[in-house]
């Protein structure tokens, strides 16, 4: 009897926590203006419908990953963009860096919810880290991501990583420990 009550209690607690969790994400995403959170594992678990539905959703999330990567890629600021800036404009972090890191942040958050898609992002992060005309802080941020996703590396990533200049690697070290 005691076990039964404990079991029911546990189920009710789990349901309660799931409701609260859902509410939290709904509110957070509403204020950030995002669409509802998408994570392959969460969606797969919550679905009771057919495998086909899951595949459709999976492809939707994969498409979103590609969109986020492409947006991040397009946002990378270059040295050229800083040439005509005034002293005042570069005194604090220029808005091009803030906007680019906003895109990189959206991608990082999406990947945190969908870790199976991390391998898909590695070629982008490597090309960003190696992009010679890109600003150092953004190259270092991409390098930091590569280091965080080290367990997903392929031979190609390893090879790309070895080509990242020492100055960028040293800069990326500055944000170690900010996880």
């Amino acid at each position, binding site marked *: 009897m005691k076990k039964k009550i404990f079991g029911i209690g546990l189920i009710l607690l789990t349901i309660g926590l799931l409701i609260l969790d859902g509410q939290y994400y709904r509110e*957070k995403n509403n*204020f*950030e*203006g995002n669409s509802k959170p998408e994570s392959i594992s969460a969606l797969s678990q919550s679905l009771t419908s057919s495998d086909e539905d899951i595949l459709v959703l999976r492809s939707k999330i994969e498409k979103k990953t590609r969109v986020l990567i492409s947006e991040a890629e397009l946002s990378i600021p270059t*040295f050229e963009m*800083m040439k005509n*800036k*005034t*002293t*005042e*404009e*570069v*005194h*604090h*972090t*220029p*808005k091009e*860096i*803030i906007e*680019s*890191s*906003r895109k*990189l*942040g*959206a991608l*990082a*958050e999406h990947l*945190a919810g969908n870790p199976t898609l991390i391998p898909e992002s590695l070629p982008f992060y490597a090309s960003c880290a190696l992009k010679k005309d890109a*600003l*150092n*802080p*953004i190259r*270092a*941020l991409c390098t*930091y991501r590569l280091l965080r996703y080290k367990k997903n590396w392929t031979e190609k990533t390893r090879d790309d990583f070895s080509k990242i200049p020492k100055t960028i690697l040293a*800069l*990326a070290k*500055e*944000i170690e*420990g*900010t996880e």
Partner: protein
Amino acid sequence: MKSRLLEVTLILNFFSMSISHAIEYHSALPANQKTSFIYDLNYLKNSKFQQDVYAEETSTLYGITGDVSGLTLLQWLNERSKFIVPETWDFDNAIVDSWPQSYANLYPTATQSINSIQLKDGEPKTVMINVGAAFYIHGKMQKLALKIKLDEDKEKVVNSPRIGIIQVGEGLFYEGFRITKRIQNTPANAISRLSVLFHESRHSDGNGSSLSFKHSSCPPRHAYQGKPACDKNRNGPYTTEKTAMKLMVRSCVECTEAEKEILRADILDSADRVILTYDILPNTSETRMLKYEVALCDLEGKTTAECSALKIKMDQLIESEGEKIVTKNLNTDPEKF
């Protein structure tokens, strides 16, 4: 025993409140800006940091003895940023009195507008300026003591760069610069704004050649090449800013991964401006002449192409024959008369 504990708690609370309220605000500071300031300072005050290698790095840089906490960092800020004035504050007519004054140490050769930011296309204006340090340098250059009017019934003699008058503008709160865009007061936005305050506060330090920790020109091949947006030392405003930000980002449990990524880019941008080594030209008659030619190029009526060619020649010479200088910490003790 209980009442004794209560008494101690009340005393401690009063002590921490008085610290957070040590910064004063001008009567015309917009209410939303004041609210954000109070939010940010309270956020800092309540921050808890792990006492690890990062905290150690911070205590060394900030000269904090003992544990690094929200309170000790707040105390550090309070010693350097004491009065917040709005963007509308009449900078030009602020001096109400002056008299001859002798100053110790070197005399600065030029003033610079310390840390303002003006944006284009109707975007806001000032972010933050350490006007107190700028007034001190101005007085020192003229060998005058300055008395300035801060508010209706408030006047102060600028007797040290630590006078701590900080001007803030809409730029600090501008949505485009925020970490969390739609809400002004969030932990991530507080971290971003506080980091600017830490940066400006460092400008209240220094004496002689280190006075106010003025920025240096960024070196060749830097994104901000030639602009005074770098530090040729290891404890200047950009180091101060990145170190505080790193500590706060590490302890921010409310920040999302996306918000942290933007703050990380901010840390990296500051770190990228700290010059660790630089090359100088060997001191020969040929190099002295070249330096002269580069410096006076515009005045001598040469074309832009000719001037850039000279500049490139000098950069190449620095690269091939330059002597490497390793930067170091500067003296942070403030001047006072």
